[in-house]
């Protein structure tokens, strides 16, 4: 393994320590845990707080999106492992005086189990907290079984849009229903080009031949549609966009927000070529584009690959998408 680290057991703690030091004007540790990242300037308690618990190794999310106008807290687990329900509950307790609290959970087994446990503990303690399950990856389950799908990069739309609306003081029930609506209007499909190396095992997470790509692979190497030979961006984008269009019925005049996310080792050069082809594909169906997000945000170490996420938006979503945020790693 060729990574610049110190003690293997300290990777997450060293990383978080560096992150807090580098962004001390905007984020801080909670008083009781150096696995809970909070905004330096908390929201007014009359507003609903937004939290997420997730495993690390996927930086900059989710810690990079803690900030005004986005998330209030990130509860950080070990590498590729969800934080315990106990720790997530500790995060929720910080917001027990707030008018409400929403725990965002990306649909992966460990995240869901621990998130559900945390919400049960919150309810036992009369804290007004709810879980919002996020899923968008069309390769992981067929149409009709959307709630079985994994959470992918398209969950970003929920983070940002609800984060912005909660900052304006909207009540929890409205936030939850908008969150579900955004989720239903979002589709994501990913492609793996080369595996990253797990910092725990020191081994590649999955295997792909040099001339192979994998359509629909999840962030930890989970399977999707299958392997094929690598080809041009245009051909790959057509194949991926055809699958997204099979899954969601877009129509002329729709305004979509695209998010092209790199998996950790995909160059900005490639991401922009990919975006160019996505834009051309959408243009042929007379679908409009609004303020795309293009960069590496949800990564799996030095994995090469990317995902395309599309949000079929309405005016409210678009306004919230571009509203300001102080999160250190969210740059539209």
């Amino acid at each position: 393994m060729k990574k610049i680290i110190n003690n293997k057991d300290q990777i997450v703690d060293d990383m978080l320590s560096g992150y807090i030091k580098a962004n001390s004007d905007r984020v801080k540790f909670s008083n009781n845990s150096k696995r809970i990242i909070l905004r330096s300037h908390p929201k007014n308690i009359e507003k609903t707080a937004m939290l997420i618990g997730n495993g690390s190794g996927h930086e900059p999310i989710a810690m990079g999106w803690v900030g005004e106008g986005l998330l209030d807290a990130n509860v950080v687990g070990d590498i590729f492992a969800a934080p315990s329900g106990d720790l997530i509950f500790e995060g929720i307790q910080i917001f027990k005086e707030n008018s409400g609290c929403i725990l965002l959970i990306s649909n992966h087994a460990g995240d869901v189990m621990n998130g559900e446990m945390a919400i049960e503990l919150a309810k036992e303690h009369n804290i007004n907290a709810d879980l919002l399950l996020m899923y968008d990856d069309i390769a992981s389950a067929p149409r009709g079984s959307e709630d079985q799908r994994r959470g992918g990069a398209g969950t970003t739309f929920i983070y940002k849009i609800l984060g912005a609306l909660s900052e304006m003081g909207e009540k929890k029930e409205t936030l939850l229903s908008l969150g579900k609506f955004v989720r239903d209007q979002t589709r994501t499909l990913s492609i793996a080009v080369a595996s990253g190396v797990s910092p725990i095992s020191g081994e590649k997470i999955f295997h792909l031949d040099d001339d192979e790509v994998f359509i629909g692979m999840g962030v930890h190497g989970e399977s999707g549609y299958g392997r094929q030979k690598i080809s041009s961006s245009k051909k790959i984008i057509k194949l991926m966009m055809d699958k997204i269009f099979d899954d969601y019925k877009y129509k002329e005049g729709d305004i979509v927000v695209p998010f092209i996310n790199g998996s950790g080792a995909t160059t900005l050069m490639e991401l922009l070529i990919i975006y160019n082809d996505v834009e051309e594909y959408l243009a042929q169906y007379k679908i409009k584009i609004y303020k795309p997000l293009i960069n590496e945000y949800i990564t799996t170490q030095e994995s090469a690959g990317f995902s395309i996420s599309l949000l079929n938006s309405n005016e409210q979503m678009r306004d919230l998408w571009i509203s300001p945020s102080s999160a250190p790693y969210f740059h539209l």
Partner: protein
Amino acid sequence: MHSAYKKWILNSYDKINSDYVELDKLDQLVGDGDHGSTIYKGITIAKQLYLNNLNSPLDETMAIISKQMRIEMGGASGILMSIFFDESGKIDKSNLNSSIIDIFEKSIDKIMKRGKVKAGDKSILDIYIPVLNFLKKNSDFQFKKNEINEILSLSLAKTKEMEAQVGRAKFLENRGLGFIDPGAKSTEIILREYFESLL
């Protein structure tokens, strides 16, 4: 029961200490390659806490261990594997057989609910359920340690032929077919040491 439980925890630690690298390798085939390290972290904390809480009532000691294992391990394995440790604290020396059956029944029930998992899904349940079935059918099971060990080995081997319906392996191209489940393997180790120390 403290001396039997101490033996169980210490022996489990020794066994996992020697096997966890192998478990990581197994997990590389079907997961993200860290199950061995994760369970090693869990059993290490269990050992430390057991030795620190030798004088507390057993159920309190096991509850402390279970909670800390869940926190240290995290993920699906932390929350699911810590359940048995918590339930095991409710053992009753004067009612040994029925309390062991009760521990297994409650553990299985909680694992099913929390993990949304059932028999045959290729998970730790595929070890617990065959053991419980044996215990229920054999009222003299305390004299049948060898048979319990056989059940454990056989149940583990059976996971090799199962296609994963849960967890990350569910999304593999072959759903983990042909490989034993890493969680089932570590559960088999822990339960083998449990009966070895208790019966």
